[in-house]
Protein backbone atom coordinates (compact mmCIF):
# COMPACT_ATOMS: atom_id res chain seq x y z
CA UNK A 1 0.00 0.00 0.00
CA UNK A 2 2.79 2.43 0.97
CA UNK A 3 4.78 1.73 -2.19
CA UNK A 4 1.60 2.26 -4.18
CA UNK A 5 1.20 5.68 -2.49
CA UNK A 6 4.70 6.71 -3.57
CA UNK A 7 4.04 5.25 -7.01
CA UNK A 8 0.71 7.06 -7.08
CA UNK A 9 2.27 10.46 -6.37
CA UNK A 10 4.79 9.88 -9.15
CA UNK A 11 1.93 8.90 -11.45
CA UNK A 12 0.08 12.05 -10.54
CA UNK A 13 2.99 14.09 -11.85
CA UNK A 14 3.53 11.79 -14.81
CA UNK A 15 7.05 10.96 -13.60
CA UNK A 16 6.60 7.18 -13.64
CA UNK A 17 7.67 4.94 -16.49
CA UNK A 18 4.55 3.75 -18.31
CA UNK A 19 6.01 0.30 -19.14
CA UNK A 20 3.23 -2.07 -20.25
CA UNK A 21 0.57 0.58 -19.55
CA UNK A 22 1.94 2.84 -22.30
CA UNK A 23 -0.89 4.67 -24.04
CA UNK A 24 -0.39 3.96 -27.72
CA UNK A 25 -1.36 6.44 -30.39
CA UNK A 26 -2.39 5.34 -33.87
CA UNK A 27 0.55 7.13 -35.53
CA UNK A 28 3.18 5.61 -33.23
CA UNK A 29 6.03 3.68 -34.82
CA UNK A 30 7.90 1.12 -32.73
CA UNK A 31 11.52 0.05 -32.97
CA UNK A 32 11.49 -3.46 -31.54
CA UNK A 33 14.15 -6.10 -31.01
CA UNK A 34 15.31 -8.75 -28.62
CA UNK A 35 17.87 -7.10 -26.29
CA UNK A 36 21.46 -6.77 -27.59
CA UNK A 37 20.47 -6.83 -31.25
CA UNK A 38 21.52 -3.35 -32.30
CA UNK A 39 18.55 -1.47 -30.89
CA UNK A 40 20.56 1.39 -29.35
CA UNK A 41 22.62 1.91 -32.48
CA UNK A 42 19.42 2.04 -34.53
CA UNK A 43 17.94 4.51 -32.05
CA UNK A 44 20.94 6.75 -32.65
CA UNK A 45 20.67 6.32 -36.42
CA UNK A 46 17.00 7.25 -36.35
CA UNK A 47 17.45 10.15 -33.92
CA UNK A 48 20.23 11.57 -36.07
CA UNK A 49 18.10 11.12 -39.18
CA UNK A 50 14.89 12.62 -37.77
CA UNK A 51 16.50 15.38 -35.68
CA UNK A 52 19.53 16.39 -37.77
CA UNK A 53 20.06 19.52 -35.68
CA UNK A 54 19.86 17.90 -32.24
CA UNK A 55 23.02 16.87 -30.39
CA UNK A 56 22.07 13.20 -30.14
CA UNK A 57 23.75 11.47 -27.21
CA UNK A 58 23.22 9.02 -24.36
CA UNK A 59 21.88 11.74 -22.10
CA UNK A 60 18.98 12.72 -24.35
CA UNK A 61 18.27 9.62 -26.47
CA UNK A 62 15.35 8.70 -24.18
CA UNK A 63 13.63 11.94 -25.15
CA UNK A 64 14.22 11.55 -28.90
CA UNK A 65 13.49 7.85 -29.39
CA UNK A 66 11.80 7.09 -26.05
CA UNK A 67 11.71 3.83 -24.12
CA UNK A 68 8.51 3.09 -22.15
CA UNK A 69 10.71 1.42 -19.51
CA UNK A 70 13.14 4.36 -19.32
CA UNK A 71 11.24 7.50 -20.29
CA UNK A 72 8.64 9.13 -18.03
CA UNK A 73 4.99 9.19 -19.02
CA UNK A 74 5.10 12.98 -19.06
CA UNK A 75 8.01 13.05 -21.52
CA UNK A 76 6.35 10.37 -23.64
CA UNK A 77 3.23 12.52 -23.97
CA UNK A 78 5.03 15.78 -24.67
CA UNK A 79 6.96 14.44 -27.64
CA UNK A 80 6.46 15.53 -31.20
CA UNK A 81 4.33 13.10 -33.20
CA UNK A 82 4.66 10.67 -34.79
CA UNK A 83 6.71 9.14 -32.00
CA UNK A 84 9.31 6.47 -32.72
CA UNK A 85 9.43 4.28 -29.62
CA UNK A 86 12.03 1.71 -28.58
CA UNK A 87 10.79 -1.62 -27.24
CA UNK A 88 11.95 -5.17 -26.46
CA UNK A 89 8.49 -6.69 -26.09
CA UNK A 90 7.45 -9.94 -27.71
CA UNK A 91 4.59 -9.61 -30.20
CA UNK A 92 2.28 -6.75 -29.23
CA UNK A 93 -0.92 -6.55 -31.29
CA UNK A 94 -1.44 -2.98 -30.11
CA UNK A 95 1.66 -1.64 -31.86
CA UNK A 96 0.39 -0.05 -35.10
CA UNK A 97 3.68 -0.05 -37.07
CA UNK A 98 6.85 -1.89 -36.23
CA UNK A 99 10.48 -1.92 -37.34
CA UNK A 100 11.94 -5.16 -36.03
CA UNK A 101 15.68 -5.71 -35.78
CA UNK A 102 16.87 -9.30 -35.73
CA UNK A 103 20.44 -10.44 -35.07
CA UNK A 104 22.18 -13.80 -35.24
CA UNK A 105 21.43 -15.37 -31.83
CA UNK A 106 24.97 -16.76 -31.69
CA UNK A 107 26.23 -13.16 -31.59
CA UNK A 108 23.39 -11.99 -29.36
CA UNK A 109 24.33 -14.44 -26.62
CA UNK A 110 27.91 -13.16 -26.51
CA UNK A 111 26.79 -9.57 -26.40
CA UNK A 112 24.27 -10.33 -23.68
CA UNK A 113 26.93 -12.17 -21.67
CA UNK A 114 29.15 -9.09 -21.63
CA UNK A 115 26.17 -6.84 -20.89
CA UNK A 116 25.31 -8.97 -17.86
CA UNK A 117 28.90 -8.63 -16.65
CA UNK A 118 28.67 -4.88 -17.11
CA UNK A 119 25.40 -4.75 -15.15
CA UNK A 120 26.94 -6.94 -12.41
CA UNK A 121 24.32 -9.64 -12.96
CA UNK A 122 27.09 -12.20 -13.46
CA UNK A 123 30.71 -12.21 -12.39
CA UNK A 124 33.76 -12.25 -14.62
CA UNK A 125 34.54 -15.83 -15.46
CA UNK A 126 30.88 -16.93 -15.24
CA UNK A 127 30.77 -20.12 -17.33
CA UNK A 128 29.64 -19.36 -20.88
CA UNK A 129 28.07 -22.81 -21.05
CA UNK A 130 25.75 -21.99 -18.18
CA UNK A 131 24.86 -18.68 -19.76
CA UNK A 132 24.04 -20.31 -23.11
CA UNK A 133 21.72 -22.78 -21.34
CA UNK A 134 19.90 -19.92 -19.67
CA UNK A 135 19.82 -17.98 -22.95
CA UNK A 136 18.20 -20.88 -24.78
CA UNK A 137 15.65 -21.31 -21.96
CA UNK A 138 14.71 -17.63 -22.17
CA UNK A 139 16.09 -17.00 -18.71
CA UNK A 140 18.47 -14.10 -19.38
CA UNK A 141 15.95 -11.28 -19.79
CA UNK A 142 12.25 -10.64 -19.16
CA UNK A 143 11.31 -10.53 -22.86
CA UNK A 144 11.03 -14.21 -23.67
CA UNK A 145 13.73 -16.27 -25.36
CA UNK A 146 15.33 -15.08 -28.61
CA UNK A 147 13.17 -17.54 -30.53
CA UNK A 148 9.99 -16.49 -28.73
CA UNK A 149 10.64 -12.82 -29.29
CA UNK A 150 11.59 -13.10 -32.97
CA UNK A 151 9.12 -15.89 -33.73
CA UNK A 152 6.02 -14.21 -32.30
CA UNK A 153 6.68 -11.13 -34.43
CA UNK A 154 7.44 -13.04 -37.60
CA UNK A 155 4.48 -15.40 -37.37
CA UNK A 156 2.12 -12.48 -36.75
CA UNK A 157 3.51 -9.73 -38.96
CA UNK A 158 5.95 -11.06 -41.57
CA UNK A 159 5.13 -9.63 -45.03
CA UNK A 160 2.67 -7.18 -43.49
CA UNK A 161 3.01 -3.60 -44.82
CA UNK A 162 2.94 -2.39 -41.20
CA UNK A 163 6.12 -4.35 -40.46
CA UNK A 164 9.73 -3.72 -41.53
CA UNK A 165 12.25 -6.47 -40.84
CA UNK A 166 15.84 -5.27 -40.41
CA UNK A 167 18.81 -7.58 -40.02
CA UNK A 168 21.63 -6.29 -37.86
CA UNK A 169 24.13 -7.97 -40.18
CA UNK A 170 22.71 -6.11 -43.20
CA UNK A 171 22.83 -2.87 -41.25
CA UNK A 172 26.51 -3.42 -40.46
CA UNK A 173 27.26 -4.37 -44.08
CA UNK A 174 25.40 -1.48 -45.73
CA UNK A 175 24.17 1.01 -43.16
CA UNK A 176 23.31 3.63 -45.75
CA UNK A 177 20.96 1.33 -47.65
CA UNK A 178 19.23 -0.05 -44.54
CA UNK A 179 18.74 3.41 -43.03
CA UNK A 180 17.20 4.39 -46.37
CA UNK A 181 14.63 1.63 -45.86
CA UNK A 182 13.97 2.95 -42.36
CA UNK A 183 13.50 6.49 -43.71
CA UNK A 184 11.01 5.28 -46.30
CA UNK A 185 9.09 3.27 -43.70
CA UNK A 186 8.98 6.16 -41.26
CA UNK A 187 7.95 8.52 -44.07
CA UNK A 188 10.95 10.86 -44.02
CA UNK A 189 12.12 12.24 -47.33
CA UNK A 190 15.85 12.00 -46.83
CA UNK A 191 18.44 12.46 -49.57
CA UNK A 192 21.57 10.35 -49.47
CA UNK A 193 23.51 13.21 -47.92
CA UNK A 194 21.22 13.42 -44.92
CA UNK A 195 21.34 9.65 -44.51
CA UNK A 196 25.13 9.59 -44.79
CA UNK A 197 25.38 12.27 -42.13
CA UNK A 198 23.14 10.32 -39.74
CA UNK A 199 25.26 7.21 -40.33
CA UNK A 200 28.45 9.12 -39.61
CA UNK A 201 27.08 10.69 -36.44
CA UNK A 202 26.04 7.25 -35.17
CA UNK A 203 29.36 5.52 -35.83
CA UNK A 204 30.64 3.10 -33.21
CA UNK A 205 33.63 5.39 -32.55
CA UNK A 206 31.45 8.39 -31.95
CA UNK A 207 29.02 6.40 -29.80
CA UNK A 208 31.93 5.12 -27.69
CA UNK A 209 33.13 8.67 -27.13
CA UNK A 210 29.63 9.80 -26.19
CA UNK A 211 29.27 6.85 -23.85
CA UNK A 212 32.48 7.74 -22.02
CA UNK A 213 31.38 11.34 -21.63
CA UNK A 214 27.75 10.73 -20.66
CA UNK A 215 27.59 7.29 -19.04
CA UNK A 216 26.43 8.74 -15.71
CA UNK A 217 23.61 10.69 -17.31
CA UNK A 218 21.99 7.76 -19.07
CA UNK A 219 19.69 5.14 -17.56
CA UNK A 220 21.20 2.46 -19.79
CA UNK A 221 24.67 2.76 -18.27
CA UNK A 222 24.34 4.75 -15.03
CA UNK A 223 24.72 2.06 -12.38
CA UNK A 224 26.90 -0.38 -14.30
CA UNK A 225 30.60 -1.17 -14.38
CA UNK A 226 32.56 1.59 -16.07
CA UNK A 227 35.47 -0.67 -17.06
CA UNK A 228 33.23 -2.42 -19.61
CA UNK A 229 31.56 -0.42 -22.33
CA UNK A 230 27.96 -0.60 -23.45
CA UNK A 231 28.90 0.03 -27.07
CA UNK A 232 30.86 -3.09 -27.84
CA UNK A 233 32.42 -4.50 -31.01
CA UNK A 234 29.65 -3.33 -33.41
CA UNK A 235 30.48 -6.33 -35.58
CA UNK A 236 28.82 -9.48 -36.74
CA UNK A 237 30.06 -13.06 -36.74
CA UNK A 238 32.34 -12.93 -33.70
CA UNK A 239 30.66 -16.10 -32.43
CA UNK A 240 32.81 -18.01 -34.89
CA UNK A 241 35.84 -17.45 -32.69
CA UNK A 242 34.24 -16.70 -29.31
CA UNK A 243 31.73 -19.55 -29.04
CA UNK A 244 32.79 -23.19 -28.78
CA UNK A 245 31.17 -25.67 -31.14
CA UNK A 246 29.03 -27.45 -28.51
CA UNK A 247 27.58 -24.09 -27.49
CA UNK A 248 26.91 -23.12 -31.10
CA UNK A 249 25.10 -26.45 -31.43
CA UNK A 250 22.91 -25.72 -28.41
CA UNK A 251 21.69 -22.52 -30.00
CA UNK A 252 21.24 -24.04 -33.45
CA UNK A 253 19.29 -26.96 -31.94
CA UNK A 254 16.94 -24.57 -30.18
CA UNK A 255 15.71 -22.65 -33.23
CA UNK A 256 16.96 -24.35 -36.43
CA UNK A 257 14.11 -23.44 -38.75
CA UNK A 258 13.80 -19.88 -37.56
CA UNK A 259 17.54 -19.33 -38.05
CA UNK A 260 17.50 -20.87 -41.51
CA UNK A 261 14.41 -18.86 -42.38
CA UNK A 262 16.32 -15.70 -41.50
CA UNK A 263 19.38 -16.76 -43.46
CA UNK A 264 21.62 -17.62 -40.50
CA UNK A 265 23.46 -20.64 -41.81
CA UNK A 266 23.75 -23.55 -39.40
CA UNK A 267 27.18 -25.10 -38.99
CA UNK A 268 26.62 -27.94 -36.54
CA UNK A 269 23.68 -29.84 -38.01
CA UNK A 270 25.17 -31.27 -41.20
CA UNK A 271 23.28 -30.72 -44.42
CA UNK A 272 19.88 -31.59 -42.93
CA UNK A 273 19.33 -28.19 -41.39
CA UNK A 274 20.57 -26.16 -44.34
CA UNK A 275 18.51 -24.03 -46.66
CA UNK A 276 18.05 -25.44 -50.15
CA UNK A 277 20.45 -23.16 -51.98
CA UNK A 278 23.20 -23.84 -49.48
CA UNK A 279 22.98 -27.63 -49.72
CA UNK A 280 23.02 -27.41 -53.50
CA UNK A 281 26.25 -25.41 -53.22
CA UNK A 282 27.70 -28.15 -51.03
CA UNK A 283 26.74 -30.96 -53.40
CA UNK A 284 28.14 -29.15 -56.42
CA UNK A 285 31.46 -29.00 -54.59
CA UNK A 286 31.85 -25.22 -54.42
Amino acid at each position, binding site marked *: *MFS*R*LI*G*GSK*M*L*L*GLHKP*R*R*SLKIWPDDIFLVSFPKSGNTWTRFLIANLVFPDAPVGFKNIHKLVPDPYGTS*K*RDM*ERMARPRIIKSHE*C*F*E*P*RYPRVMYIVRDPRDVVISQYHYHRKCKKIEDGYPMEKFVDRFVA*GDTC*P*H*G*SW*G*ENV*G*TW*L*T*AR*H*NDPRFLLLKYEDMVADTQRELGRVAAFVGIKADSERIAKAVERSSADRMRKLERAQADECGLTKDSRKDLSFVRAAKSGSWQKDLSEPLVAKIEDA*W*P*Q*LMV*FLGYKLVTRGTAGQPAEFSSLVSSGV
Partner: protein
Amino acid sequence: MIYGLKRVIKYVLGTDIAGRNLAVFPDDTFIVSYPRSGNTWTRFLVANLVYPNQAVTFANIEQLIPDSEAMSSRYVKRIPRPRIIKSHQYFDPRYGKIIYIVRDPRDVALSYYDFARKYRQIENDYPLTSFASDFVAGRLSSSDWGTWGENVASWLYTRGSQPQFLLLRYEDMLRDTEAELGKISRLLGMEATPERLRTAIERSSAERMRRLEADQGDQWVSTKNKRSDIPFVRTASSGLWKEKLPASSALEIESAWGPLMRELGYSLTTNRGEYGTAVESPELVKEHR
Protein backbone atom coordinates in the same frame (compact mmCIF):
# COMPACT_ATOMS: atom_id res chain seq x y z
CA MET B 1 -0.29 18.83 -14.80
CA ILE B 2 -2.72 16.24 -13.44
CA TYR B 3 -2.42 13.02 -15.42
CA GLY B 4 -5.50 10.83 -15.24
CA LEU B 5 -6.34 11.40 -11.58
CA LYS B 6 -8.92 8.63 -11.62
CA ARG B 7 -6.41 6.13 -12.91
CA VAL B 8 -3.89 7.18 -10.27
CA ILE B 9 -6.41 6.72 -7.46
CA LYS B 10 -7.29 3.31 -8.86
CA TYR B 11 -3.61 2.40 -8.92
CA VAL B 12 -3.02 3.54 -5.33
CA LEU B 13 -6.04 1.56 -4.15
CA GLY B 14 -5.09 -1.40 -6.32
CA THR B 15 -8.46 -1.38 -8.06
CA ASP B 16 -6.99 -1.12 -11.57
CA ILE B 17 -7.83 -4.12 -13.78
CA ALA B 18 -5.01 -6.66 -13.61
CA GLY B 19 -4.91 -7.40 -17.38
CA ARG B 20 -1.45 -7.33 -18.94
CA ASN B 21 0.03 -5.80 -15.78
CA LEU B 22 -0.95 -8.81 -13.68
CA ALA B 23 1.75 -9.76 -11.17
CA VAL B 24 2.64 -13.35 -12.11
CA PHE B 25 3.91 -15.95 -9.60
CA PRO B 26 5.94 -18.98 -10.66
CA ASP B 27 3.33 -21.45 -9.35
CA ASP B 28 0.41 -19.89 -11.28
CA THR B 29 -1.61 -21.89 -13.79
CA PHE B 30 -3.43 -20.02 -16.55
CA ILE B 31 -6.56 -20.88 -18.50
CA VAL B 32 -5.94 -18.90 -21.68
CA SER B 33 -8.03 -18.54 -24.83
CA TYR B 34 -9.28 -16.04 -27.32
CA PRO B 35 -12.70 -14.75 -26.16
CA ARG B 36 -15.75 -16.96 -26.87
CA SER B 37 -13.75 -20.19 -27.08
CA GLY B 38 -15.08 -22.09 -24.08
CA ASN B 39 -13.02 -20.40 -21.37
CA THR B 40 -15.91 -19.97 -18.91
CA TRP B 41 -17.03 -23.57 -19.29
CA THR B 42 -13.42 -24.69 -18.70
CA ARG B 43 -13.24 -22.51 -15.59
CA PHE B 44 -16.33 -24.25 -14.22
CA LEU B 45 -14.94 -27.68 -15.12
CA VAL B 46 -11.63 -26.94 -13.42
CA ALA B 47 -13.21 -25.28 -10.39
CA ASN B 48 -15.58 -28.23 -9.91
CA LEU B 49 -12.66 -30.61 -10.30
CA VAL B 50 -10.34 -28.83 -7.88
CA TYR B 51 -12.99 -27.85 -5.29
CA PRO B 52 -15.37 -30.84 -5.23
CA ASN B 53 -16.81 -29.88 -1.83
CA GLN B 54 -17.96 -26.46 -2.92
CA ALA B 55 -20.89 -25.41 -5.11
CA VAL B 56 -19.26 -23.54 -7.99
CA THR B 57 -21.46 -20.69 -9.22
CA PHE B 58 -21.21 -17.38 -11.05
CA ALA B 59 -21.33 -15.77 -7.60
CA ASN B 60 -18.07 -17.36 -6.44
CA ILE B 61 -16.17 -18.31 -9.62
CA GLU B 62 -14.04 -15.16 -9.35
CA GLN B 63 -12.80 -16.28 -5.92
CA LEU B 64 -11.92 -19.74 -7.22
CA ILE B 65 -10.54 -18.98 -10.68
CA PRO B 66 -10.31 -15.19 -11.01
CA ASP B 67 -10.59 -13.45 -14.36
CA SER B 68 -7.46 -11.31 -14.76
CA GLU B 69 -9.22 -9.34 -17.50
CA ALA B 70 -12.11 -8.30 -15.24
CA MET B 71 -10.79 -8.25 -11.67
CA SER B 72 -8.47 -5.74 -10.01
CA SER B 73 -4.76 -6.33 -9.51
CA ARG B 74 -5.30 -6.29 -5.73
CA TYR B 75 -8.09 -8.85 -5.96
CA VAL B 76 -6.06 -11.30 -8.05
CA LYS B 77 -3.01 -10.75 -5.85
CA ARG B 78 -4.96 -11.84 -2.75
CA ILE B 79 -6.15 -15.15 -4.18
CA PRO B 80 -4.48 -17.97 -2.21
CA ARG B 81 -1.61 -19.68 -4.03
CA PRO B 82 -1.18 -21.69 -6.12
CA ARG B 83 -3.64 -19.72 -8.22
CA ILE B 84 -5.51 -20.77 -11.35
CA ILE B 85 -6.21 -17.65 -13.40
CA LYS B 86 -8.35 -16.98 -16.45
CA SER B 87 -6.78 -14.85 -19.19
CA HIS B 88 -7.27 -13.79 -22.81
CA GLN B 89 -3.72 -12.53 -23.26
CA TYR B 90 -1.58 -13.14 -26.33
CA PHE B 91 1.84 -14.64 -25.62
CA ASP B 92 3.25 -13.51 -22.30
CA PRO B 93 6.69 -14.97 -21.55
CA ARG B 94 5.99 -14.82 -17.80
CA TYR B 95 3.21 -17.39 -17.87
CA GLY B 96 4.47 -20.81 -16.77
CA LYS B 97 1.78 -23.49 -16.75
CA ILE B 98 -0.89 -22.96 -19.39
CA ILE B 99 -4.16 -24.57 -20.50
CA TYR B 100 -4.84 -23.05 -23.93
CA ILE B 101 -8.29 -23.57 -25.45
CA VAL B 102 -8.73 -23.09 -29.17
CA ARG B 103 -12.03 -23.13 -31.07
CA ASP B 104 -12.96 -23.03 -34.76
CA PRO B 105 -12.80 -19.29 -35.56
CA ARG B 106 -15.95 -19.54 -37.67
CA ASP B 107 -17.87 -20.59 -34.54
CA VAL B 108 -15.99 -18.02 -32.47
CA ALA B 109 -17.15 -15.24 -34.83
CA LEU B 110 -20.75 -16.36 -34.50
CA SER B 111 -20.61 -16.59 -30.72
CA TYR B 112 -18.79 -13.28 -30.51
CA TYR B 113 -21.52 -11.61 -32.56
CA ASP B 114 -24.13 -12.48 -29.92
CA PHE B 115 -21.74 -11.47 -27.17
CA ALA B 116 -21.05 -8.07 -28.76
CA ARG B 117 -24.79 -7.44 -28.95
CA LYS B 118 -25.24 -8.54 -25.35
CA TYR B 119 -22.51 -6.12 -24.30
CA ARG B 120 -24.07 -3.38 -26.44
CA GLN B 121 -20.80 -3.05 -28.37
CA ILE B 122 -22.83 -3.19 -31.57
CA GLU B 123 -26.45 -2.45 -32.39
CA ASN B 124 -28.89 -5.33 -32.42
CA ASP B 125 -29.26 -5.17 -36.21
CA TYR B 126 -25.54 -4.73 -37.04
CA PRO B 127 -24.94 -7.03 -40.02
CA LEU B 128 -23.20 -10.30 -39.20
CA THR B 129 -21.08 -10.00 -42.36
CA SER B 130 -19.73 -6.63 -41.21
CA PHE B 131 -19.01 -8.10 -37.80
CA ALA B 132 -17.11 -10.99 -39.38
CA SER B 133 -14.99 -8.49 -41.34
CA ASP B 134 -14.26 -6.57 -38.11
CA PHE B 135 -13.34 -9.87 -36.46
CA VAL B 136 -10.82 -10.71 -39.19
CA ALA B 137 -9.37 -7.21 -39.46
CA GLY B 138 -8.90 -6.75 -35.70
CA ARG B 139 -11.43 -3.94 -35.33
CA LEU B 140 -13.24 -5.37 -32.28
CA SER B 141 -12.98 -3.78 -28.85
CA SER B 142 -10.98 -6.85 -27.83
CA SER B 143 -8.35 -6.35 -30.53
CA ASP B 144 -5.88 -5.39 -27.81
CA TRP B 145 -5.64 -9.17 -27.36
CA GLY B 146 -4.77 -9.54 -31.04
CA THR B 147 -6.90 -11.17 -33.69
CA TRP B 148 -7.91 -14.80 -33.34
CA GLY B 149 -4.97 -15.84 -35.53
CA GLU B 150 -2.47 -13.65 -33.72
CA ASN B 151 -3.56 -14.83 -30.30
CA VAL B 152 -3.53 -18.53 -31.18
CA ALA B 153 -0.29 -18.43 -33.21
CA SER B 154 1.60 -16.45 -30.58
CA TRP B 155 1.06 -19.27 -28.04
CA LEU B 156 1.38 -22.24 -30.38
CA TYR B 157 4.61 -21.01 -31.86
CA THR B 158 6.30 -20.33 -28.55
CA ARG B 159 4.94 -23.00 -26.23
CA GLY B 160 3.20 -25.53 -28.46
CA SER B 161 5.68 -28.33 -27.78
CA GLN B 162 6.33 -27.76 -24.10
CA PRO B 163 5.09 -30.09 -21.34
CA GLN B 164 3.78 -27.14 -19.30
CA PHE B 165 1.47 -26.15 -22.17
CA LEU B 166 -1.76 -28.06 -22.76
CA LEU B 167 -3.55 -27.35 -26.02
CA LEU B 168 -7.25 -28.25 -25.95
CA ARG B 169 -9.70 -27.93 -28.80
CA TYR B 170 -13.15 -26.84 -27.70
CA GLU B 171 -14.59 -29.34 -30.18
CA ASP B 172 -12.72 -32.23 -28.52
CA MET B 173 -13.89 -31.05 -25.12
CA LEU B 174 -17.50 -31.23 -26.30
CA ARG B 175 -17.01 -34.65 -27.86
CA ASP B 176 -15.18 -36.31 -24.98
CA THR B 177 -15.21 -34.02 -21.98
CA GLU B 178 -13.93 -36.69 -19.62
CA ALA B 179 -10.81 -37.41 -21.64
CA GLU B 180 -9.97 -33.73 -22.04
CA LEU B 181 -10.64 -32.91 -18.38
CA GLY B 182 -8.41 -35.86 -17.54
CA LYS B 183 -5.58 -34.12 -19.42
CA ILE B 184 -6.21 -30.98 -17.40
CA SER B 185 -6.11 -32.90 -14.12
CA ARG B 186 -2.76 -34.42 -15.10
CA LEU B 187 -1.36 -30.99 -15.98
CA LEU B 188 -2.47 -29.82 -12.53
CA GLY B 189 -0.72 -32.82 -11.00
CA MET B 190 -3.95 -34.36 -9.69
CA GLU B 191 -4.91 -38.00 -9.56
CA ALA B 192 -8.59 -37.61 -10.37
CA THR B 193 -10.75 -40.72 -10.38
CA PRO B 194 -13.30 -41.16 -13.21
CA GLU B 195 -16.07 -40.46 -10.66
CA ARG B 196 -14.51 -37.20 -9.67
CA LEU B 197 -14.12 -36.19 -13.33
CA ARG B 198 -17.71 -37.13 -14.08
CA THR B 199 -19.08 -35.22 -11.10
CA ALA B 200 -17.18 -32.11 -12.19
CA ILE B 201 -18.55 -32.50 -15.72
CA GLU B 202 -22.14 -32.91 -14.51
CA ARG B 203 -21.86 -29.86 -12.30
CA SER B 204 -20.57 -27.82 -15.27
CA SER B 205 -23.22 -28.90 -17.76
CA ALA B 206 -24.65 -26.28 -20.11
CA GLU B 207 -28.09 -26.67 -18.52
CA ARG B 208 -26.77 -26.12 -15.04
CA MET B 209 -24.70 -23.13 -16.16
CA ARG B 210 -27.74 -21.64 -17.90
CA ARG B 211 -29.79 -22.00 -14.72
CA LEU B 212 -27.02 -20.41 -12.68
CA GLU B 213 -26.75 -17.57 -15.19
CA ALA B 214 -30.49 -16.96 -15.04
CA ASP B 215 -30.34 -16.77 -11.22
CA GLN B 216 -27.04 -14.96 -10.77
CA GLY B 217 -26.48 -12.98 -13.98
CA ASP B 218 -26.64 -9.71 -12.07
CA GLN B 219 -24.07 -10.88 -9.51
CA TRP B 220 -21.31 -11.81 -11.96
CA VAL B 221 -18.81 -9.23 -13.13
CA SER B 222 -19.04 -10.40 -16.75
CA THR B 223 -22.84 -10.28 -17.10
CA LYS B 224 -23.83 -7.49 -14.72
CA ASN B 225 -25.51 -4.53 -16.48
CA LYS B 226 -25.43 -6.31 -19.82
CA ARG B 227 -28.47 -7.18 -21.94
CA SER B 228 -30.24 -10.06 -20.17
CA ASP B 229 -32.30 -11.07 -23.23
CA ILE B 230 -29.16 -12.54 -24.83
CA PRO B 231 -27.58 -15.32 -22.72
CA PHE B 232 -23.86 -15.54 -21.95
CA VAL B 233 -24.00 -19.34 -21.92
CA ARG B 234 -25.04 -19.98 -25.50
CA THR B 235 -25.57 -23.17 -27.47
CA ALA B 236 -22.50 -25.05 -26.17
CA SER B 237 -22.18 -26.67 -29.58
CA SER B 238 -19.74 -26.80 -32.48
CA GLY B 239 -20.22 -26.38 -36.20
CA LEU B 240 -23.14 -23.98 -35.97
CA TRP B 241 -21.31 -21.72 -38.44
CA LYS B 242 -22.25 -24.17 -41.21
CA GLU B 243 -25.88 -23.06 -41.01
CA LYS B 244 -25.65 -19.61 -39.44
CA LEU B 245 -22.55 -17.95 -40.89
CA PRO B 246 -22.83 -16.53 -44.43
CA ALA B 247 -20.52 -18.34 -46.86
CA SER B 248 -18.72 -15.10 -47.70
CA SER B 249 -17.82 -14.58 -44.04
CA ALA B 250 -16.59 -18.15 -43.63
CA LEU B 251 -14.44 -17.57 -46.72
CA GLU B 252 -13.07 -14.34 -45.32
CA ILE B 253 -12.03 -16.11 -42.12
CA GLU B 254 -10.50 -19.01 -44.03
CA SER B 255 -8.46 -16.81 -46.31
CA ALA B 256 -7.09 -14.91 -43.32
CA TRP B 257 -6.05 -17.92 -41.23
CA GLY B 258 -6.33 -20.95 -43.52
CA PRO B 259 -2.91 -22.51 -42.82
CA LEU B 260 -3.28 -22.12 -39.07
CA MET B 261 -6.84 -23.51 -39.14
CA ARG B 262 -5.72 -26.53 -41.11
CA GLU B 263 -2.83 -27.03 -38.72
CA LEU B 264 -5.40 -27.24 -35.91
CA GLY B 265 -7.57 -29.68 -37.84
CA TYR B 266 -10.35 -27.31 -38.87
CA SER B 267 -11.18 -28.30 -42.41
CA LEU B 268 -11.66 -25.51 -44.91
CA THR B 269 -14.63 -25.18 -47.24
CA THR B 270 -12.34 -24.06 -50.06
CA ASN B 271 -8.70 -24.12 -50.97
CA ARG B 272 -8.53 -20.39 -50.55
CA GLY B 273 -6.66 -20.84 -47.31
CA GLU B 274 -3.67 -22.02 -49.32
CA TYR B 275 -2.91 -18.42 -49.99
CA GLY B 276 -3.67 -17.09 -46.52
CA THR B 277 -1.43 -14.23 -45.56
CA ALA B 278 -1.96 -13.71 -41.84
CA VAL B 279 0.28 -16.61 -40.89
CA GLU B 280 2.82 -16.72 -43.64
CA SER B 281 4.99 -19.37 -42.13
CA PRO B 282 3.02 -22.27 -40.74
CA GLU B 283 6.25 -24.26 -40.79
CA LEU B 284 7.47 -21.91 -38.08
CA VAL B 285 4.43 -22.71 -35.99
CA LYS B 286 5.14 -26.39 -36.48
CA GLU B 287 8.74 -26.17 -35.36
CA HIS B 288 7.89 -26.23 -31.69
CA ARG B 289 5.65 -29.28 -31.73
